[in-house]
């Protein structure tokens, strides 16, 4: 099989992993959320790419076209996007609260404060 046929997926994977890396490695909560979004969005691309048919067109029925790309992944991703934004919103809400409660959005600072609290208990 011809590896070049997969180039598209590989790009996606690179994107995905960069997002993933941000999530794990960054200490800033907001950065983490961003990373998460990037991660998810790249997964969306993965789905969409698989629906593409060469010389196909958007799946809106029309006499002019014969070949349409697969509508199913589109639907799935529509849903996934919504889920994504929902998660982001929730996550950010948490960040706001954390900022209020701890006065910081840096992971290590927060954990420090927790340790102190446990010590005091």
């Amino acid at each position: 099989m011809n590896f070049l046929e997969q180039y598209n997926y590989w790009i996606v994977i690179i994107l995905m992993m960069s997002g993933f890396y941000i999530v794990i490695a960054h200490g800033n909560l907001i950065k983490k959320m961003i990373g998460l979004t990037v991660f998810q969005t790249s997964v969306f691309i993965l789905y969409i790419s698989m629906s593409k048919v060469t010389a196909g067109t958007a799946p809106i029925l029309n006499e002019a076209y014969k070949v349409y790309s697969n509508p199913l992944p589109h639907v799935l991703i529509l849903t996934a996007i919504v889920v994504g934004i929902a998660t982001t919103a929730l996550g950010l809400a948490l960040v706001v609260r954390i900022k209020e409660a701890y006065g910081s959005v840096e992971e290590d600072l927060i954990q420090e404060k927790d340790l102190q609290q446990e010590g005091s208990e």
Partner: protein
Amino acid sequence: MIEHLPILQVIIPLLAAPICLILREARLVRWFTFIASALAFVNSILLLQQVQTQGTISYSLGGWDAPIGIEYRIDLLNAYLLILVTSISTLALLAAGPSLRKELSERKETYFYVAYLLCLTGLLGILATGDAFNVFVFLEISSLASYTMIAMGRDRRALWASYQYLIMGTIGATFILIGIGLMYMMTGTLNMYDLAERLPEVQQTKTVFTAFAFFVVGVCLKLALFPLHLWLPNAYAYAPSIATVFLAATATKVAIYVLLRFIFSVYGFEFSFSHLPLQEILVALGLMGVFAASIVAIYQDNVKRLFAYSSVAQIGYMILGLGVGSKTGLTATLLHLFNHALMKGAIFLALAGLIYRVGSVNLKAFSGLGKQMPWTMAAIVVGGLSLIGVPLTVGFVSKWYLVLALLESNWWPIAVLVLIGSLLAVIYVWRIVEVAYFRKAMQDSAPYKEAPLMILIPTWILVLANIYFGIDTGFTVGLSEQIAASLFEVAK
């Protein structure tokens, strides 16, 4: 209406949620929620009967048959877990009233109940559906709802815990999404049973392996298998008591269900166990989980956190049973699913009552409670004995099957380790017992009253269940064995 049971199971709580938001008035909402959950419970029982009489039920949503449309498919396994989830949630709600009024601000209660219902919806949806992507959607519903519930904890650490859970949970979900995507890519279908038919053709492809790997990792994140459990302890420790009860008893179980479903019904036993070192991995991780978590649990002073760690350990047992890869092993896992829900349900409910009176779950606060809150403490002790696996409690039944399974496949050493593991449970349970019964109460504090009846009743229903199902094991064992058998049927 009888043919609509599968969908009713999910949409009863689902539709109840927005209605609750409209009702707003907290007390109203509370009863409404309770009724919804109770209905769901009744529904699940009917469903089980239906399955037992007429076998697997398939319900195609929107009238589009699978794989075109989304299908709900209920067999014994789902029915069994549906009952588990709905029953626990109903009992938890029974106690919710006083506990929440103590722990949440009046205005937040409504939101809590809505979130609770949504979480319930999500879990039930996961259990009922026969469509891979639908699993993802409802997984997210339940997850988002549980992040919300956890974040409502009084301690600010609840926020941090919830955030961590959100990050790890979402990563898990995304992994699952990738897994599903790859499966879809190779088969062109999302329906589990259609997948099961079409996967064998492409079984050998690397893509399918990857799909499997990602899916399993994702699920393991959700069910807090040992190295991926980091989100769980704090989440359980700082969430509002009722949320802890509900999540601890059900959420991880549902994740395990998903794992079972895909390992056995979708990929098939053959693929899952013979093509991959899955067995070894599961057993290893399971054992490590049991020990690591139990040992950490021993050093916890926050009792809620202590039992949270013990949950991780118990999950280890379930995975172990699965890892054995024999009928008996699977039976043990299924039994432990149910039994562990009973134990932890009882314990965390008791703790809810304790928080209601004492306000703290720090071990120090326990001194002398054996006298002051005899019923609550007794509940914790029975739950603890069950965790240890003392005869005549449910814990013993599942341990027995697990050890038996290990011996059957000639894994003596592991069997020994399992038993040693349960001795670790003795240690952390006894730390509590000693403080509660053999240490004088602190002088400065006035003696605490026994927990309110509304909390005690459900607690003791669960405690008695712990004992009852430990003695009359017909229902659980029978069902589990049936299910295990059927799963292996499918797998063959």
